[in-house]
């Protein structure tokens, strides 16, 4: 078989590979929905700045949007800004084209809450009978929008609780920044779980790649250098990476140095067990499922919660144990209920 056959087979191959990265959804065939046809309903999806291609969170949202478009017979305009300014212009375009484009139902889907601040300068950016707004993330600025998110507190708690029991007692945490709520939740959950097990406070002093909110998620080089620096200086047993797409660089470091290092890490947002033999589990954040569920309600005109947080309990977050570490499953199972309860308490307090 030559190069040509390679072309032929790669589709099958990629299908096997990448479907496993996305959450299960039993919607392989299009759902005929009389309430929406492509000429009536539009999803206008604006992704985070340079977000697509992270092999994680943003790709999951992108997948969820495209899947929803297919399943619910709606039109889509996918918009990838490369700066906050261009994002602002793109969002303005959504409002400017209201009614002009002829759609009866229009959904502005923001794949990140990093654009919430822009709403302050645009008082006309509001929902209407025609226009709905969904922010994937937190609605701390109280903008006129649905805010749906997935909390990783519970799954991270379960991870922290379990790895200590498994003997990984020297742990470093790396966050994209200290101000993004999703990062705070995950790190807090991991720290609380670990602390519960070890009676120690986790050190995270040097663990942030950037200072500003919403940044540090695509710092590939920094992540790589951090991995090497941390390993050389502290020789942690385990690194917990809450750095978005940059986490693949931690894994690359682990692969490239596999003959001389031996620390563990975990997949984040999606299953990353293929990245290294030293990834015993992954924390999944099923934002694709979140998008599909929201769009389903939007299309069917069901009641939609203004604020919704998917949790470990509701299966929007989960821990997937890698194949070679199947004997760890029972340890994680042991702390599932405790983690779910801890997450409920945490979220209640936050409210």
């Amino acid at each position, binding site marked *: 078989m*030559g*190069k040509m056959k390679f072309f032929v087979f790669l589709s099958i191959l990629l299908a096997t*590979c990448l479907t496993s990265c996305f959450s299960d959804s039993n919607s392989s065939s299009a759902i005929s929905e009389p309430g929406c046809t492509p000429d009536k309903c539009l999803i206008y999806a604006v992704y985070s700045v340079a977000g697509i291609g992270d092999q994680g969170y943003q790709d999951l949202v992108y997948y969820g949007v495209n899947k929803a478009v297919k399943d619910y017979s709606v039109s889509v305009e*996918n918009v990838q800004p490369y700066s906050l300014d261009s994002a602002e212009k793109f969002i303005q375009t959504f409002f400017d084209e209201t009614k002009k484009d002829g*759609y009866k139902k229009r959904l502005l889907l923001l794949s990140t809450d990093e654009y919430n601040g822009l709403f302050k300068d645009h008082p006309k950016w509001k929902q209407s009978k025609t226009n709905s707004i969904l922010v994937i993330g937190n609605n701390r600025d109280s903008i006129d929008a649905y805010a749906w998110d997935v909390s990783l507190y519970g799954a991270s708690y379960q991870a922290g609780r379990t790895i200590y029991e498994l003997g990984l007692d020297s742990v470093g945490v790396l966050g994209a920044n200290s101000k993004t709520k999703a990062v705070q939740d995950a790190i807090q959950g991991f720290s609380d779980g670990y602390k519960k097990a070890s009676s120690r406070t986790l050190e995270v002093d040097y663990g942030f790649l950037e200072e500003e909110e919403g940044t540090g998620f695509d710092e590939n080089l920094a992540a790589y250098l951090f991995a090497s620096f941390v390993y050389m200086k502290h020789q942690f047993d385990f690194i917990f990476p809450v750095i978005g797409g940059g986490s693949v660089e931690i894994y690359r470091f682990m692969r490239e140095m596999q003959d001389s290092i031996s620390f563990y890490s975990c997949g984040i947002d999606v299953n990353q067990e293929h990245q290294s033999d030293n990834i015993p589990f992954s924390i999944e954040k099923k934002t694709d499922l979140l998008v599909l569920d929201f769009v389903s309600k939007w299309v069917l005109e069901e009641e939609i919660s203004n604020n919704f947080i998917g949790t470990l309990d509701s299966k929007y977050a989960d821990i997937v144990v890698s194949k070679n570490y199947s004997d760890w499953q029972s340890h994680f199972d042991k702390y599932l209920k405790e983690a779910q309860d801890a997450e409920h308490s945490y979220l209640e307090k936050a409210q």
Partner: protein
Amino acid sequence: MKLFIFLFLALLLGACSDNGSSVNNPPPQEVSVKVAVILPLNESGSIHWRNTADWFEENLQKAFSRSHNSSVKLDLEWIDEDSSNMKELSATLIKNDDIKAIIGPLKEDKLDTLAGYLAIANKHGPRKTLIAPKATDAEIVRKFGDEKWFFSLTETDATLCGNLLSSAKAMDAKSVSLLTSSANEEKTFLDWFAFQAVELGLQINAIESFNDTSDVKTVAENFFSTSQDFVICIPANYMEAIEILKAHKKQKSTARLLFSENAVDPEILKYPEAEGLEAVTPGASPESGFDIAYFTKFDIYPGIGSAQFYDALMLVAFAQTEMLASDDSLFLDEHIKNLVKQNSYANSWAWEPFGMSGVLEKIQKGQANIDFSGASSSLVFNESSYSIISETIYTHWIAKNQKFYPLNYKSAYGNNRTNNSEISYKWYFTHILPQIQGIDSTRHIEYPPLKGNYALLVATTRTWGEYRHESGVYSMYHKLKNYGYDDDHIILIAEKDIITSDYNPAKGTWVDYNEEQIIDSLNADYKISELEPQDVLKILTGQKSERLPHVIQSDSTQNIFVYWSGHGDRGNLGWKIGGTRSGSFSYDDMQTLISTLSKEKKFRKMLWVVETCYSGSVCKAFDDVGAEGALCMTATNENETSKGLMYYAPFNQYLANSFSYNFMSILDNSTISSQDNYDIPLSDMYSELYKATLGSHVSIYNSQNYGNLKLNKIGEFLVPVQ
């Protein structure tokens, strides 16, 4: 009342308009452009090409519908490249004036044929644009990369080879080996492996090739019976990859393996040996989201090349749109260049309808500085011709649990989603080269006064297909004559058949490395077909005979210059390859020759300039003999091939090889004119050649026994003593 009626009508009209969005409103005017698409359509994966084309057309029309301006539609004529005679097809396409652009084919030999025809046809008639979604053969890109109408959307296998090696380097490899198929389509790896390994500071352990699936097992088992550190594996198909993996396991080798794209085949996942296999392949940009969007739309993932095909269609549509908007007389390829010239590595999504509509609007308004990215890459092209894509995204795969997963992505320059795989040439020149070559600039050797010069010029090949070797020697002959040599002091060995060839449209002439046509005035002493390799020794030692009436009668006061151009393999300089493969001048022959000439004091100084593949493997004899005053410069080191340059479409031939072209160009730019002005220190000549010759490492031998290369100049070989 009137107001009521007006409002009623307005409401009614508004309601009517709600029945359909602008998506359904046909644009004011639609202009069609005919494009021939030549791709493998009978294979099971051919659905990807149709899917991609349909999807592109859908997105294009959506994009146009946003602007409500005149739109462009691509009228595709599908042609199966596997069931087409490419010569006949090329002739048919050239005659078809309706076809403005051709996309494909994928197979290198077919692309080469089509491009060869277009190279001639496009010089005379309206130009057709050729876009190759995946021209990975470096030879094709070298031949057609400067043509105005040629575009390639994937970097060549030379870049993939560099990626594989930089991965090895990153994985802490100390030495690397190449185990490769000798299939023609994989030859780029053989050409570039050694060069790039040296560039990266990697020691080369072994280079081994196998013919096909029948002998890969034996070759691989022998290969892994020796100690290996890191092995780059280039199978022609997945079965060969399996045999390599089995041999690796059988020999209990600890070598780390990294494969090229043919190993990434779902069939290989059925074999337990494939667990953990890693490979690097060209792919789509992760930042474009193309793979994910394709999957959600078609429930399968795209084949490799789909993103490049999508971009090819997009480039044609954009260019045609600009052509309509500007209403000028430029060709389609010129409009493509106009557009891509403005692209940067900063991303700007243009392959989805929303981004595409923005680009189309700017084009229609005649705006400058439109910067757009495609599905496969940022669509930045080389600055010299804007025809070869500058950055391909490569995916590093791993097989785990019977699935393939992408580990990471690499590109030439890297960004927030891809790693930088650029090889640091500058660093190499400034830090490593001086150490490796060890040019001795201090040692001084006393030579007797120069009293005369001789030159031996040898073209060891014949036939039209080896044009560059003969023409190179003829160019050198002319240079020497211009510098003052007479024919009594030049021995010219060449077949001269390119001058009389039926392929030559102007018999009695030949074309030099600068495309200058020259009337034959060459005074050849021998045809290569009349001599045997051992005759070189006889000629240089002055052993005149009835069969060899022209020899060099030199002594220790005369300089000898030898320019040799032809083929070579490891340990041999070829003899009469081209038409007949009939012999070689080996390392041992070279060793004997230098020893003999030195012992018999047949030269004061002797400089060999050797233009063949693997020339270092023979000319290292200069080092091993260590004869005082003997120096050699070669086109390549021991493990490399030399590369053709100056493709001349009317002949479908190269006019020179890279090393020789640079050698002569440096002379052209020098002021060599007389004994008083020998110009160009040998050290400068060497370093200039080293920097200018791409694809091989120009090497120098026996400099330690020659004297100060900064003080010794090239001119004392080229300008004869009067």
